[in-house]
């Protein structure tokens, strides 16, 4: 035995996939390239707008918010009654299984490699488990169910790092790949708005009473919850090239940091998030002038949005005022633990489409958030990279830097 390598993926070391073929020349010099670069070969997403990449992409590019009155459960005891929800009462394990299958199919992978592929999963606590006195974990049995249905390796852990849970799983998966511990990892995440989470955020007065999410805008009143699920297949560049796989995007860099500041509020100066951005740029050896778009965390709360704006000014310097920014939470709502992955997929979709998602709900400028917000449809990205930011309770921050394939 040995110190257990990340994800026990050492089993995959030296597999033919890692050494086969020549990595596709996905991009030019200047970034961290080579056989261990990380590419996205398959992805899928679900939001309240609907199921599948087309409907999710169209909703954010048009800037059409998906918020409506909650019908899934009673909100009579709450201050607010609005969320972004799919119709009916979807089943989390079933929805997760479908997005993973769609991503797997999109990556053109066969069934023969399923059993060897790690699955990392980010979930919110389960309302079913909370009511089951015999439940072993707050997450219930969703992870085991999904891994079993998909035929992937058993899930080693469920990420519950609040609103950076899914992006943390992506970073762990990428690290497994660049350190040679895995050649391919599936990352999936899901959140469906439920009565417990709604009542909890209502009690915390975190929900926007006016029924709209208005990131970085004057008059913003808070966040709104939204259903969100996503899955991506991450692979080493060598593995993808070796099987001539479709490449949706390159995960060029990533960074993560802690604020060391507060139980639930971010550092007002955004310095923690700024360190995550700088780490992502450094890892990719990318210049901040090359960022064409920032899909911001942008929850729509007063303190968090101004902190994030400060982080962008710190990390991007003079380019902060010149880089288009939006928060797609203004359209699909806050998917909590799943938000980082849903928003990563949305960011890749925008790069592929050559158009930028709209920062919906905007009313007027806020001097604490002086950014180049995307306020209407049709703007085009003009740089090489897009940055996806997430921040969470406890001062946890992540930055994912993606590059169009």
């Amino acid at each position, binding site marked *: *035995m*040995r*110190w*257990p390598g*990340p*994800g*026990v993926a050492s089993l995959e070391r030296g597999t033919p996939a890692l050494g086969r073929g020549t990595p596709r020349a996905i991009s030019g010099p200047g970034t961290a390239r080579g056989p261990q670069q990380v590419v996205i070969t398959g992805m899928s997403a679900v939001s309240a707008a609907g199921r599948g990449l087309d409907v999710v992409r169209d909703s954010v590019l048009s800037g059409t918010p998906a918020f409506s009155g909650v019908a899934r459960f*009673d909100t*009579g*005891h*709450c201050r607010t009654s609005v969320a972004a929800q799919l119709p009916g009462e979807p089943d989390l394990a079933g929805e997760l299984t479908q997005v993973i299958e769609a991503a797997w199919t999109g990556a053109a992978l066969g069934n023969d490699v399923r059993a060897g592929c790690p699955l990392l999963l980010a979930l919110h*606590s389960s*309302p079913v488990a*909370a*009511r089951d*006195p015999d439940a*072993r*974990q*707050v997450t219930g049995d969703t*992870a*085991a169910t999904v891994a079993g249905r998909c035929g992937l390796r058993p899930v*080693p*852990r*469920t*990420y*519950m*790092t*609040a609103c*950076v849970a899914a992006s*943390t799983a992506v*970073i*762990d998966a990428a*690290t497994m790949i660049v*350190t040679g511990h895995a050649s391919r990892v599936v990352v999936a995440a899901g959140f469906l708005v439920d009565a*417990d989470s709604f*009542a*909890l*955020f*209502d*009690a*915390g*007065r975190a929900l926007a009473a006016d029924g709209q999410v208005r990131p970085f805008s004057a008059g913003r009143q808070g966040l709104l919850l939204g259903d969100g699920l996503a899955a991506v297949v991450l692979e080493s560049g060598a593995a993808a090239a070796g099987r001539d796989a479709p490449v949706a995007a390159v995960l060029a860099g990533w*960074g*993560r*940091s*802690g*604020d*060391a*500041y*507060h*139980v*639930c509020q971010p550092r007002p100066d955004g310095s*923690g998030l700024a*360190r995550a951005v700088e*780490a992502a740029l450094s890892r990719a050896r990318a210049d901040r002038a090359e960022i064409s778009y920032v899909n911001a965390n942008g929850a729509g709360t007063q303190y968090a949005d101004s902190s994030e704006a400060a982080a962008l000014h710190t990390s991007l310097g003079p380019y902060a005022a010149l880089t288009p920014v939006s928060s797609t939470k203004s359209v699909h709502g806050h998917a909590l633990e799943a938000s980082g992955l849903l928003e990563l997929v949305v960011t890749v979709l925008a790069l592929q489409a050559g158009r930028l998602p709209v920062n919906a709900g905007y009313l007027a400028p806020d001097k604490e958030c002086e950014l180049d917000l995307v306020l209407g449809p049709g703007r085009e990205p003009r740089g090489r990279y897009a940055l996806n930011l997430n921040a*969470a*309770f*406890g*001062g*946890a921050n992540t930055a994912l830097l993606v590059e169009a394939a």
Partner: protein
Amino acid sequence: MTTAPASTPAATWPREQPPPAGVVMLARAEWPASPGDVLPPIPGFILSSFSPLVVEVARRCLSLYFGAAPADPARGERTAVVLASSTGDIATAAAIAKAVDEGRRVQPLLFFQSNPNASVGYLTARWGLAGPVVCTVPDGDAMSDARHCASLLIEGGDADAVLIILADQARDPTQNDHGVGLLIGPRSWPAAAGGLDFPPG
């Protein structure tokens, strides 16, 4: 809540399972450490022992290495936290569900403590730990999986040291909660008084 647990995960680090190169164990603590051990309450955290458990095992572990809070900035900024709980905060989750089922408003303080990040934010603010934060519910052996996560943080260059916290709540009132705090970091860091290394298995 006074009986020491029968087993103490990660009390030893077997020779055949070494940590990443150059990484040593800097400090280790657990709760309960003795019969009659108590968890100090934390202002603003209610109903559940989960966050007090996390904060107390972290305090005991970090105190062994850094002394009084905060950590020195140079090392604190490069120290990450991995909180791995096989149960999660089941008491808080159950309290929220009970309020919803009874048609009552949820207590606002439960909003802040409903996610494990909150307790980590509490301790990192006091100790000045500014590395990444990772909170998980492991499916198998919690310490083994937490070491996976810590290894990823160190091998990936995201942190030099990692405070690993295991925190499990007992649902059966006759059983104890149990927590372990383990600080691992580079061999080059100054050794603590009576310094630790990975003991042989």
